[in-house]
Protein backbone atom coordinates (compact mmCIF):
# COMPACT_ATOMS: atom_id res chain seq x y z
CA UNK A 1 0.00 0.00 0.00
CA UNK A 2 2.92 2.25 -0.74
CA UNK A 3 0.84 4.46 -3.05
CA UNK A 4 -1.54 5.12 -0.15
CA UNK A 5 1.35 6.23 2.06
CA UNK A 6 2.98 8.49 -0.50
CA UNK A 7 -0.33 10.02 -1.54
CA UNK A 8 -0.99 10.92 2.11
CA UNK A 9 2.54 12.31 2.42
CA UNK A 10 1.98 14.40 -0.72
CA UNK A 11 -1.14 15.95 0.83
CA UNK A 12 0.74 16.69 4.06
CA UNK A 13 3.65 18.27 2.18
CA UNK A 14 1.25 20.40 0.12
CA UNK A 15 -0.69 21.53 3.22
CA UNK A 16 2.47 22.33 5.21
CA UNK A 17 3.98 24.21 2.30
CA UNK A 18 0.78 26.17 1.70
CA UNK A 19 0.13 27.14 5.32
CA UNK A 20 3.59 27.48 6.83
CA UNK A 21 6.37 27.62 4.23
CA UNK A 22 5.28 29.74 1.25
CA UNK A 23 2.25 30.90 3.27
CA UNK A 24 -0.09 31.49 0.38
CA UNK A 25 -2.73 29.99 2.70
CA UNK A 26 -4.83 28.92 -0.27
CA UNK A 27 -6.62 26.42 1.96
CA UNK A 28 -8.17 29.25 3.95
CA UNK A 29 -9.58 30.93 0.83
CA UNK A 30 -12.97 30.18 -0.72
CA UNK A 31 -11.60 30.69 -4.22
CA UNK A 32 -9.29 27.69 -3.77
CA UNK A 33 -12.12 25.36 -2.78
CA UNK A 34 -14.25 26.70 -5.63
CA UNK A 35 -11.40 26.01 -8.07
CA UNK A 36 -10.79 22.54 -6.65
CA UNK A 37 -14.52 21.78 -6.72
CA UNK A 38 -14.62 22.64 -10.41
CA UNK A 39 -11.52 20.59 -11.25
CA UNK A 40 -12.54 17.50 -9.26
CA UNK A 41 -15.32 16.31 -11.61
CA UNK A 42 -12.89 16.62 -14.52
CA UNK A 43 -10.33 14.54 -12.62
CA UNK A 44 -12.99 11.89 -12.00
CA UNK A 45 -13.93 11.97 -15.69
CA UNK A 46 -10.35 11.51 -16.92
CA UNK A 47 -9.62 8.91 -14.23
CA UNK A 48 -12.63 6.94 -15.37
CA UNK A 49 -11.54 7.17 -19.02
CA UNK A 50 -7.93 6.17 -18.28
CA UNK A 51 -8.85 3.20 -16.10
CA UNK A 52 -11.98 1.96 -17.94
CA UNK A 53 -9.93 1.72 -21.13
CA UNK A 54 -7.04 0.18 -19.19
CA UNK A 55 -4.67 2.88 -20.41
CA UNK A 56 -3.30 3.12 -16.87
CA UNK A 57 -3.36 0.16 -14.48
CA UNK A 58 -2.46 -0.09 -10.82
CA UNK A 59 -0.77 -2.84 -8.85
CA UNK A 60 -3.34 -4.07 -6.32
CA UNK A 61 -0.58 -4.54 -3.74
CA UNK A 62 0.16 -0.82 -3.67
CA UNK A 63 -3.35 0.48 -2.97
CA UNK A 64 -6.00 -0.05 -0.30
CA UNK A 65 -8.35 -1.26 -3.02
CA UNK A 66 -11.25 1.13 -2.77
CA UNK A 67 -11.87 2.77 -6.13
CA UNK A 68 -13.72 5.90 -7.21
CA UNK A 69 -14.59 6.38 -10.89
CA UNK A 70 -12.35 3.44 -11.73
CA UNK A 71 -9.19 4.83 -10.15
CA UNK A 72 -7.78 4.07 -6.69
CA UNK A 73 -9.15 6.40 -4.00
CA UNK A 74 -5.52 7.41 -3.44
CA UNK A 75 -5.69 9.25 -6.75
CA UNK A 76 -7.96 11.86 -5.14
CA UNK A 77 -5.24 12.59 -2.57
CA UNK A 78 -2.67 12.87 -5.35
CA UNK A 79 -4.94 15.21 -7.37
CA UNK A 80 -5.71 17.40 -4.37
CA UNK A 81 -2.02 17.75 -3.49
CA UNK A 82 -1.16 18.62 -7.09
CA UNK A 83 -3.77 21.38 -7.33
CA UNK A 84 -3.01 22.79 -3.88
CA UNK A 85 0.74 22.84 -4.48
CA UNK A 86 0.40 24.36 -7.95
CA UNK A 87 -1.92 27.17 -6.83
CA UNK A 88 0.02 27.81 -3.65
CA UNK A 89 3.27 28.22 -5.60
CA UNK A 90 1.47 30.30 -8.23
CA UNK A 91 0.23 32.74 -5.58
CA UNK A 92 3.65 32.81 -3.93
CA UNK A 93 5.39 33.83 -7.16
CA UNK A 94 2.60 36.33 -8.00
CA UNK A 95 3.38 38.24 -4.83
CA UNK A 96 7.12 37.96 -5.35
CA UNK A 97 6.72 39.71 -8.66
CA UNK A 98 4.53 42.44 -7.17
CA UNK A 99 6.97 43.24 -4.39
CA UNK A 100 9.83 43.46 -6.89
CA UNK A 101 7.96 46.04 -8.94
CA UNK A 102 7.17 48.24 -5.94
Amino acid at each position, binding site marked *: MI*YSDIALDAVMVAVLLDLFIVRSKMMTRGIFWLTYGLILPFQLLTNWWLTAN*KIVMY*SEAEIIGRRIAGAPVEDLLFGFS*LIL*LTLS*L*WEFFSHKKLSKQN
Partner: protein
Amino acid sequence: MAHFHYFFVLAFIGLCAVGVNLGFRIRIASKLQQFLLVDALIIVLYLSWDIWAVFKKSWYFDPNQIIGLQLFGRLPIEEILFFVIVPLMGVLTYSALLKLTGWGATEEAR
Protein backbone atom coordinates in the same frame (compact mmCIF):
# COMPACT_ATOMS: atom_id res chain seq x y z
CA MET B 1 -5.04 5.43 -33.44
CA ALA B 2 -4.99 3.38 -30.25
CA HIS B 3 -1.48 4.65 -29.57
CA PHE B 4 -2.93 8.12 -29.02
CA HIS B 5 -5.53 7.11 -26.40
CA TYR B 6 -3.61 8.63 -23.50
CA PHE B 7 -2.50 11.57 -25.62
CA PHE B 8 -6.13 12.37 -26.54
CA VAL B 9 -6.99 12.80 -22.87
CA LEU B 10 -4.21 15.38 -22.56
CA ALA B 11 -5.28 17.03 -25.82
CA PHE B 12 -8.81 17.34 -24.44
CA ILE B 13 -7.53 19.09 -21.30
CA GLY B 14 -5.27 21.21 -23.52
CA LEU B 15 -8.24 22.31 -25.63
CA CYS B 16 -10.15 23.24 -22.46
CA ALA B 17 -7.09 25.28 -21.42
CA VAL B 18 -7.00 27.17 -24.71
CA GLY B 19 -10.76 27.79 -24.47
CA VAL B 20 -10.54 29.15 -20.91
CA ASN B 21 -7.48 31.25 -21.75
CA LEU B 22 -9.18 32.90 -24.73
CA GLY B 23 -12.74 32.94 -23.34
CA PHE B 24 -11.77 34.64 -20.08
CA ARG B 25 -8.93 36.69 -21.59
CA ILE B 26 -6.45 35.35 -19.04
CA ARG B 27 -3.46 35.99 -21.34
CA ILE B 28 -1.42 33.29 -19.65
CA ALA B 29 1.40 33.83 -22.17
CA SER B 30 2.22 37.11 -20.42
CA LYS B 31 2.87 35.09 -17.26
CA LEU B 32 4.77 32.31 -18.97
CA GLN B 33 7.89 32.73 -16.85
CA GLN B 34 5.90 32.52 -13.63
CA PHE B 35 4.15 29.42 -14.87
CA LEU B 36 7.38 27.72 -15.94
CA LEU B 37 8.88 28.42 -12.52
CA VAL B 38 5.90 26.84 -10.75
CA ASP B 39 5.77 23.95 -13.17
CA ALA B 40 9.49 23.23 -12.86
CA LEU B 41 9.02 22.66 -9.13
CA ILE B 42 5.91 20.53 -9.70
CA ILE B 43 7.71 18.45 -12.33
CA VAL B 44 10.75 17.80 -10.11
CA LEU B 45 8.52 16.62 -7.24
CA TYR B 46 5.89 14.63 -9.07
CA LEU B 47 7.97 13.13 -11.85
CA SER B 48 10.46 11.78 -9.28
CA TRP B 49 7.54 10.09 -7.58
CA ASP B 50 6.18 8.92 -10.93
CA ILE B 51 9.49 7.50 -12.19
CA TRP B 52 10.05 5.69 -8.90
CA ALA B 53 6.52 4.23 -8.95
CA VAL B 54 6.79 3.17 -12.60
CA PHE B 55 10.08 1.39 -11.91
CA LYS B 56 8.46 -0.34 -8.92
CA LYS B 57 5.45 -1.16 -11.13
CA SER B 58 3.04 0.52 -8.71
CA TRP B 59 1.27 1.61 -11.86
CA TYR B 60 1.85 0.82 -15.50
CA PHE B 61 0.63 1.77 -18.93
CA ASP B 62 -0.81 -0.22 -21.82
CA PRO B 63 2.01 -0.10 -24.40
CA ASN B 64 -0.59 -0.13 -27.19
CA GLN B 65 -2.30 3.03 -25.93
CA ILE B 66 0.71 5.32 -25.54
CA ILE B 67 2.77 6.99 -28.24
CA GLY B 68 5.82 4.96 -27.25
CA LEU B 69 8.35 7.69 -26.45
CA GLN B 70 9.61 6.95 -22.96
CA LEU B 71 11.87 8.75 -20.52
CA PHE B 72 14.49 6.42 -18.99
CA GLY B 73 12.95 3.73 -21.17
CA ARG B 74 9.96 3.45 -18.82
CA LEU B 75 8.12 6.70 -18.26
CA PRO B 76 5.76 7.58 -21.14
CA ILE B 77 6.21 11.08 -22.59
CA GLU B 78 2.49 11.54 -21.83
CA GLU B 79 3.29 11.60 -18.10
CA ILE B 80 5.57 14.60 -18.59
CA LEU B 81 2.90 16.34 -20.65
CA PHE B 82 0.40 15.54 -17.91
CA PHE B 83 2.45 17.51 -15.38
CA VAL B 84 2.54 20.50 -17.72
CA ILE B 85 -1.07 20.51 -18.90
CA VAL B 86 -2.80 19.74 -15.60
CA PRO B 87 -1.00 22.47 -13.59
CA LEU B 88 -1.64 24.86 -16.51
CA MET B 89 -5.34 24.01 -16.46
CA GLY B 90 -5.32 24.49 -12.68
CA VAL B 91 -3.81 27.97 -12.93
CA LEU B 92 -6.20 28.93 -15.76
CA THR B 93 -9.25 27.67 -13.87
CA TYR B 94 -8.13 29.61 -10.79
CA SER B 95 -7.50 32.80 -12.83
CA ALA B 96 -10.85 32.50 -14.61
CA LEU B 97 -12.72 32.03 -11.31
CA LEU B 98 -10.88 35.01 -9.77
CA LYS B 99 -12.14 37.13 -12.67
CA LEU B 100 -15.62 35.67 -12.57
CA THR B 101 -16.15 36.08 -8.82
CA GLY B 102 -14.03 39.16 -8.19
CA TRP B 103 -12.86 37.50 -4.96
CA GLY B 104 -9.23 38.23 -5.76
CA ALA B 105 -9.79 42.00 -5.70
CA THR B 106 -11.27 42.08 -2.19
CA GLU B 107 -8.56 39.83 -0.85
CA GLU B 108 -5.75 41.93 -2.30
CA ALA B 109 -7.26 45.02 -0.70
CA ARG B 110 -6.73 43.54 2.75
